[in-house]
């Protein structure tokens, strides 16, 4: 019989076998990476909103407290979204003619609500409660980032389960004194660990990682 294969096939065969291993490993890595990439988590993604609302201006600039708009954040699971009314408190007086605010005035007149697109959107089978997190000393910034520096709102955290667990497993790494939960620029005066451990004691923060804490 004559040769069926060219001498080069030997190399090709070996290389392809070796390559297959690498490609497979590579694929696995790629998936893991994709899952955590901002493509999947939508970190930093700015969404189309009815109004170009700037937290930077209102929080950073004017220093309006979070609770002025997100009224129920301390008492309810849901932080609350300001009714058009709230906007109009000020905007009947200032920028009352601004074209940017036309939708707000429209809504106020017609009674048709503004329809926003959620930026921090957990899956529907996850039950998150704002009030208790604040009460235990989790700052707004910890999960929402420096909104006072965001002209347009976007996520800064992945909000994936492993991210939640990171804090639920080691709260001392993230908690802060209650009085500073709404502060944008709070920095621990002492070592976060020691502070954290003290607060965990003080606030009776349990490391809750069982399923029904979030899923029911």
């Amino acid at each position, binding site marked *: 019989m004559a040769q069926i294969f060219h001498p080069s096939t030997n190399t090709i065969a070996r290389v392809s076998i070796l390559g297959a291993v690498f490609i497979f490993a590579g*694929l696995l890595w*790629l*998936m893991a990476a*994709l*899952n955590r990439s901002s*493509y*999947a*988590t*939508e970190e930093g993604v700015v*969404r189309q909103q009815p109004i170009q609302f700037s937290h930077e201006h209102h929080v950073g600039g004017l220093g309006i407290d979070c609770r002025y708009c997100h*009224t*129920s954040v301390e*008492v*309810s*699971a*849901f932080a*609350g*979204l*300001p*009714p*058009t*009314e*709230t906007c109009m408190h000020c905007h009947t007086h200032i920028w009352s003619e601004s074209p940017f605010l036309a939708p707000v005035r429209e*809504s*106020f007149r017609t*009674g*048709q*609500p*503004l*329809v*926003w*697109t*959620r930026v921090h*959107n957990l*899956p*529907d*089978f996850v*039950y998150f*409660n704002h*009030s*208790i997190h604040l*009460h*235990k000393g989790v700052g707004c910034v910890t999960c929402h980032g420096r909104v006072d520096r965001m002209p347009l709102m976007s996520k800064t955290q992945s909000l*994936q*389960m492993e991210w939640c667990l990171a804090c639920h497993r080691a709260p001392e790494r993230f908690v802060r004194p209650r009085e500073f939960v709404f502060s944008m620029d709070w920095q621990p005066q002492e070592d976060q660990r020691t502070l954290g451990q003290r607060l965990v004691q003080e606030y*009776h923060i*349990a490391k*809750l990682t*069982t*399923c*029904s*804490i979030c*899923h*029911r």
Partner: protein
Amino acid sequence: MLNLPQIKPVHQHPSLGDLATIRGRLQTAQGPEYWRSLEELAGSQEFQEFLHREFPQQASEWQDAMGRRRFLQLMGASLALAGVSACSRQPDEKIVPYVRAPRGGMVPGKPLYFATAMTLDGVALGVLAESYMGRPIKIEGNPQHPASLGATDAFAQASVLTLYDPDRAQAVTTQRGQISTWNAFLTTLRTALEAQHLKDGAGIRLLTETVTSPTLVQQIHTLFTRFPGASWHQYTPVNDHTVQAGARMAFGKDVTPLYHFEKANVILALEADFLASGPSTLRYAHDFAQKRRLPGTSTAMNRLYVVESSLSLTGAIADHRLPVRPSAIAGLALAVARALGVIANGSATIQAQVAPLSRLAPYPPASEMQAHWIKTVAEDLWQHRGASLVVVGRQQPPLVHALAHAMNNVLGNVGHTVVYTTPVAAQPVDQLGSLRTLVEDMAAGRVELLVILGGNPVYTAPADLPFAQHLIRVPLCLYLGLYANETSALCQWHIPETHYLEAWGDARAYDGTVSLTQPLIAPLYNGKSAPELLAALLEQPEQSGREIVQEYWRSQYEGADFDQFWRRALHDGLIADTAFPPQEVQLRTDWLAEAATPAAPSPGLELLFQPDPTIWDGCFANNGWLQELPKPITKLTWDNAALLSPATAEWLGLSNEAVVELRLQGRSVRAPVWIVPGQADDVVTVHLGYGRWRTGRVGAGTGFNAYTLRTSEAFWAGRGLEVHPTGERYLLATTQHHHSMEGRHLVRAGTLQQYLEQPYFAQEMSHIPQPQETLYPPQDYEGYAWGMVIDLNTCLGCNACVVACQAENNIPIVGKREVQRGREMHWLRIDRYYKGPPHQPEVYHQPVLCMHCEHAPCEVVCPVYATVHNHEGLNDMVYNRCIGTRYCSNNCPYKVRRFNFLHYAETHTPSLQLLHNPEVTVRSRGVMEKCTYCVQRISAARIQAQLENRTMRDGEVVTACQAACPTGAIIFGDINDPSSHVVRLKGTPLNYGMLTELNTRPRTTYLARLRNPNPALGDAPG
């Protein structure tokens, strides 16, 4: 994390596109705008969609188009191994804030509770409605209300589903079906009324159900002052005219007996299902339980004798139950009365009166046995003079009621265990007579304007009254009703009625207490309440229900600050001190004279009518929760049946599901047979309310219409019934196929005597030695550790907990076909077992829900951690992790797990999605689910406690089933807290765990059932 498209809960905040828009509109609208926006809503596309939408329980396998598409996407995704990378981009979610913040201190994401009242047959039950972002989603009992005391029944629990029922009448219709408007109606009405003015309204007739509402009554009276010629007729298919007649016979005036079971030590119930049927059952059950429960050391326990022809829940818990045919009860009552010396011995002897009670009753010979029985019961009653009670049910003729009054009189019970008050019905009339005169008037053409407020007379009227055929001839007929039904079909005008959660109103509770109804949501379907319609008749159509009710009470109120009084009344849901005071009654001496002694029971079969235990007289026919709710005794769903005793069935050569033709006085209906142990021989029981020919998609095609046999003389019971086998079969859907405990100690029961001698008998019953030692290290649960105790001694099997659980946890209904396949979804079921001879069995009820075993067998076999323990010892079920191997269910010895074999969840009908509890995930196809001990309530309480820097108090967490239970048979709490109620009960000797020999260590345990038989009758139930 894969975003599971099928799992679509209605979230704390608007989450789904279509829903968001709907709710957005609901929320943003205020007062009149609200109104308008709902009309817009009616026009909107998604609204149209849900009007023409199949219901979940018709869930034909292909029906779920969405699911299919979604599934293919998912398949594609996961096959392309994008699945592994979890394609975790979530779809954009819209969020809709208010325009103006709502009044009334509503916090977004937190529920509010409003007191209101639900009426059934005109009588009120006070409830609290839980409102979530403006949506009423759950009914709880009103602790301040005398009829509720915090408990609810299955009807109240299921009433929220009726509120959102897309099959409800949507618009004013005329000419038997054409869509019209309220204003068009008003014009017609005005002209008609003008015509009537000339003849003092001689042509006006008003047909209502029993009316207790003071406001409505006043309106009606005003109407009659304007139109003296008009007349008012009342007809309710399940009415108390026998009770009234009986009282009139005994006392010569209209009074209603109110019972105090908490004071009664010996009770004789004659065909009286006082624990489960009627407007006062919740209160009576509560009071009865007071004497049934064994708190701590007390060993006092009442004794209940029941004589009835068809096994009822009251009969099921009786200490002695005597099944006899309806016609024989009178004789039996007479005999007891005679034994008590109520009547001097007449010609007839006990023997003569009693025999032959039953041709088929096996050993011992009926007469002897019953003679002995009667004697013993009479003695027992006599010994407990003043603390005994004789109760008679509405199915019995007036004579028997009168006899009972006489007996209670002799026994000195009046004023103690029974008091007499003004009837709650504003105008107690013989409703049959009332309807008959109306029909005669219609026949004679004297009726020109007929106004029907509620009810469904065309369907429910006695068969011998040609109501329907004369109704068509009435020139102008206005019908106010929730549904387009048999009656609306024959009326020129149909005005959609408001649901009680949409309307203002008032009504009296069983004891006369005025209960207020206030709306939690603007009418979803353009409805009008009865007061509003009457206002229109009074030519003040602009009056809103609110004004009408408030104005009436303003006029009634003498006090200073009406607004404060009104606020208080609304807050409490009732007007204080409006209960009728007890009246002095004098037993007439000659009452017996006019009472014809009952004819000795004729041989042959008898027919007994009963309101259906789950859909009552048919008014709940389109309520899926109630349709799929297993009937307490038969465990049937979606159908009624002809109930026969085993002996009778054998004698007739019939078996379950055989179709027979029932013939009574020339009328006939075809019905499937269902054999019920404990049914009296020679009696066929049929439940009313089925066989509707014009109803919604849920009720359509269920059961047979028992009204076709029901005539004004054979109103509750009829003689001379013929049963003709047809050889056909009709498949019924039952949730329990096997009725014996197979000698397993699941429900543990004993007698009071046994308990006194050997308190721990229940725990000693467990025949297999329990392994106390285990290989597993002890799990220490610091903090809370939740546990439950269910007291079988006070559980009546009334089903309230089952529906409460369904409402709280978004449990879907699956439909008859799936139930037949054994796929019902109830997280909490009530097992019913029989023990002893089939003609006189002992009956045991056992609510079974997840036991939350500490050594849960289900968890170990789950390959994906979809069910695991939490730190408080709950057996968590993580729906979004579940892949549906169903191994957990196989390994669950209690079989409490439920699986979504198909897409059962209601995710397509927007109006029904408004009903979803946002705190509980809506489960997708292919996911296992089960009782969670209402973990959402635990979480809420835990968070609240922590926000207030305290620990949870005992009783702070109340599970849905516990809240509903009228007898407090379900107790939930922290077993780490030695002072908690649940720990106290778990410490009692009666406490036992089911199947503990498997070392599952259930957190849910039971208190053994006790019976208190009369030694003189032996331990036999009879």
